[in-house]
């Protein structure tokens, strides 16, 4: 079992006001399994992923009945232990390479740094490893990208570089937080396919966070649908068409289609009862 989370709650406190952003989320992820967490903006999917890496700001209070990564209790780890985990055991890909890569450091240096943090070796070895990783993410002209700054390459190349950086220490879990939402539609599928392939060949687990239900169902084994900090429904990706929960159905129902053009799309009607059902 790679990830095992039971009753995760994340609360933010601001000026005495408490706001629970994640209320009792539970899921499991086996090794070599791919799980997608899907939900609207603000549903709590991103901070769930960040909580798993303990990357939330200090004012976030995280509690859980169980929060295990590869059998390690995340919440009780020291910061030093967490640093070995971050990057080393679990890579984390962010949304937009324009902001998630450091603008004043070369791509090569940023990847080499990730490698050096978790491997012993010379700078030369780190640089060779970086070049090798850039080849693995099938970037055009890896030698050139190695010495380029983030603003000198395209968004798609930047996301490939980001993936290379997070694969550098050879982690067993890859968390991708909306890895394609900042990219052109034509590049999105390419990047997802690349992540899919790399996860397969490296025997990694994948936690893919997205708001695109049908898209992720092509790449993942399981899909968890999140709404207002709770998981509405978890189902096998192939069973998406038979979704039982009205929220999932509603999300699927308001998608436009190219093959058979539809008139006005229905508006999703939200039922406050969805949240109460979960609370019981």
């Amino acid at each position: 079992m790679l990830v095992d989370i039971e009753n995760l709650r994340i609360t933010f406190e601001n000026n005495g006001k408490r706001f629970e952003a994640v209320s009792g989320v539970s899921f499991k992820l086996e090794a070599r399994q791919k799980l997608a967490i899907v939900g609207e903006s603000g549903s709590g999917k991103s901070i769930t992923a960040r909580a798993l890496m303990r990357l939330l700001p200090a004012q976030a209070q995280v509690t859980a009945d169980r929060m295990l990564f590869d059998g390690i209790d995340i919440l009780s780890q020291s910061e030093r232990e967490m640093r070995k985990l971050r990057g080393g055991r679990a890579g984390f890909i962010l949304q937009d390479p324009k902001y998630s890569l450091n603008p004043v450091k070369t791509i090569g240096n940023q990847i080499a740094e990730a490698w050096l943090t978790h491997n012993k070796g010379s700078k030369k070895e780190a640089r060779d490893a970086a070049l090798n990783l850039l080849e693995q993410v099938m970037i055009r002209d890896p030698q050139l990208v190695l010495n380029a700054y983030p603003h000198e390459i395209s968004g798609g190349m930047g996301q490939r570089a980001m993936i290379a950086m997070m694969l550098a220490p050879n982690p067993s879990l890859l968390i991708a937080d909306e890895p394609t939402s900042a990219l052109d539609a034509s590049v999105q599928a390419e990047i997802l396919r690349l992540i899919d392939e790399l996860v397969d060949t490296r025997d990694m687990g994948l936690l893919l966070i997205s708001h695109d239900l049908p898209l992720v169902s092509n790449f993942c084994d399981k899909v968890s649908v999140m709404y207002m900090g709770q998981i509405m429904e978890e189902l096998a990706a192939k069973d998406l068409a038979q979704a039982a929960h009205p929220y999932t159905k509603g999300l699927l129902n308001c998608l436009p289609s190219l093959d058979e053009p539809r008139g006005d799309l229905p508006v999703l009607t939200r039922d406050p009862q969805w949240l109460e059902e979960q609370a019981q």
Partner: protein
Amino acid sequence: MNRKVKSFAATLGSVLVTLFGLSVITFMIGRVMPVDPVLAAVGDNAPADVVAAARAEMGLDDPLIVQYWSYISNVLQGDFGRSVLTRNPVISDIAHYFPATLEMATLALLIATLLGVPAGIISAVKQGSLTDQIIRVVCIAGHSVPVFVLALLGLLIFYVGLDLVPGPGRQGVIYDGMVPSVTGLLLVDSLLAGDMGAFWDAVHHLTLPVLILAYFSMAYITRMTRAFMLDALKGEFIISARAKGLSGWSVVMGHAFPNVAVQLITVLALTYAGLLEGAVITETVFAWPGLGQYLTTALMNGDMNPVVGTTLIIGAVYVGLNLLADILYRVFDPRVA
């Protein structure tokens, strides 16, 4: 590369235009000031024909454009005219007084940077903590109390009260004029002459004015560093750096700081320029024989050549430091072409 050369040429061009504008303004100041250079030269009681002859000889009857031309061609040859007060060429007066200001301002900037930048970083990293609060209070005090109040208080406490530092001036009486002037910087000259007594005397005299200017500048540098760092630490790339497993310190110094270094260069350059120019008040309080004191003394006495010459030099220093900041920008920030 070609693009870099081009944009650099454009910067140099704008510097030249600025310097030209500066020379026109200083020239105009010299003409519109209600001080008659002829009377200053020949005295109040000179007969009218002597005044007229002197006026013609000084070229003041020529059209303004001709006067500007002769002024600028003299300036370009390093001739700023003579000071009526000191009877020396203005340029040699400046060469004499400027090192005193330079020595004080440079030391102050050095101390302010070495203290201010780390303080700003710590303050930003530990935002809201007690350390942050203390640093901020110290900075607000340094920034809001006028520098002459600090200087007078400093003299009152450390000179009058505790007798820890010597009084005003740059040198003790016994060392005055004993060290041969090579660079004009007393610390350097006394070391070159091997005169340790004069060196420590210079250190003692520098201590209080330098510390006061350093405190004043540090307050600004700390505040700016803190603001820049807070902004950089909010960046998404900080999350990715942490997600790589880097320690807190490598994230701060390896990822956040390089992003603010470029902005800091501008702040430091402007602070330095401000110190070189704005030490006027401090120099007055400490009777420091620097450029600021030379300028104010000349101004009070209607001695226009030094006023115009000094203003021009200070302006050129400002432009020069801006150019330096611009060059450093290009070196340190890959995004600036």
